[in-house]
């Protein structure tokens, strides 16, 4: 586990990691054209569809393993919530999961 994740910088590190995953999925040229922030909504602002969200979830799972039960978390997200899901919500979930330990 990256020691930074427990520091003030932790959320920033997680956010950068998530951006990397999304870039791998939708392409770096696309990412460069978008003004992505922590408040960007994956489905609306990044136009990610269900298949891309699933690919994203797999990358998160592979990165954090059992320390963060991202698969269950996202599988319990209702349609309405998914339509408003931002990076900051995901960052908070991962950060909180890592810091419960």
């Amino acid at each position, binding site marked *: 586990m990256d020691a930074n994740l427990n520091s003030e910088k932790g959320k920033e590190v997680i956010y950068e990691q998530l951006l990397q995953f999304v870039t791998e999925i*939708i392409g770096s040229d696309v990412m460069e054209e978008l003004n992505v922030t922590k408040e960007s909504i994956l489905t609306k602002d990044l136009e990610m*569809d*269900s*298949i891309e969200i*699933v690919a994203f979830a*797999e990358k998160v799972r592979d990165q954090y393993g059992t320390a963060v039960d991202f698969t269950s978390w996202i*599988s*319990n997200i209702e*349609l309405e919530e998914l*339509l408003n899901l931002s990076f900051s919500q995901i960052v908070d979930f991962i950060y909180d999961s890592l810091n419960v330990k």
Partner: protein
Amino acid sequence: MAKFAFVIPPLEGHINPTLSIGRRLLERGHTVGWICVEAPGIKEKLPEGAKALIIQHHLSEDDLSELTKNSVGISIQGIESLKILYEDVLIPFNQFLLEGIVSYLKDFEPDIVVYDQQMFAGAVASYRLKIPFVASVTAPSSIRTIEALPKLHEWEDNQVISFQQRNGVPFDDRLDEHAEFVLVYTSDLFFGEHKLSQQYKFVGPVTEARPNQYTFDWDRFRAWGDIPKILVSIGTTFIFEEKINFFLKVMEAFKNEEIGVVVISDPDLFDEIPANFIIQKRIPQLQILPFLQVVVCHAGQNTVSESLSHGIPLVTIPVAYDQSQVAESVVKTGAGIRLKFNRFRPKELRDAVYEILNNSIYAENAGTVRDSFIQCGGVDAAVGYLEELVD
């Protein structure tokens, strides 16, 4: 001999399989009726001998179009389109037609009702009148649960279950589960892994015997000679003008290439049409497909099925609804490449088409899907299952 009633929405892709199956039932001496809302051209589509059970209404063509999603789609894409489809289209549309369906079924007294799965009012009406019913699924993604996002499918189901309950059906699951069986117009191979019961009959795409309704510039098409030919279609339910950027990128991608390009769009939207382009609003798609090497499309279930039935690989560019999942099936079976609708650049589209033209593996994989479709039995299988119910 038996009596069958199809309950359909006025949408081409949903109607077409019922036309082929219904025509075959008529040929075999059965009585067949179609219950549909009054819409332009709907009666003319039905085969000879069909009973047209048309629900009259006082809506304008625009209002009807609004109600049947034809005009939806300018900015609504991705997962949000699912929500709009149910809340603004399917639920009000089914409620609007329910009593009309009940009334026609009472008069017509069919032995079996075959309802389009999106016309779930047809299941409710049949249940109320105690007529056995069969579901017809033209958009197989609607019976798929994405394992990582199960709540999406659950939400869809809940919309339908609430509709059923408001209209007198006591069950807490969909009536599809109580149907005699569910006709699914694709193959197991293309649909991918699933946990559906034996009640789901994968009969493959049903595209045969559709009459040719549209003219086509065959002279120009033949004049292209031996160069590769492709079709570009994002379906007929979107307003072409709102998708002009898409079509301009298509033109940019291929205007200087040695490729013949048939585009389904409005030719009046373009200042100039290059010699290697044919642009028409409607085309006799089934007649043209055998001459094509690649189909570029929005991953609508019907265009994809028709292309793969001819063993033609695809570049998919999904826009909305279930198209993302159909595109995923194309990629998973190796029968094509996927691009992003708003994001792709002309060069990427051009590269994708050349990648498919230059690598036979895509066509081989498309051929494998075609074979899986053939093995499903198509119209014969569907008619066989239906006749078993009434023997």
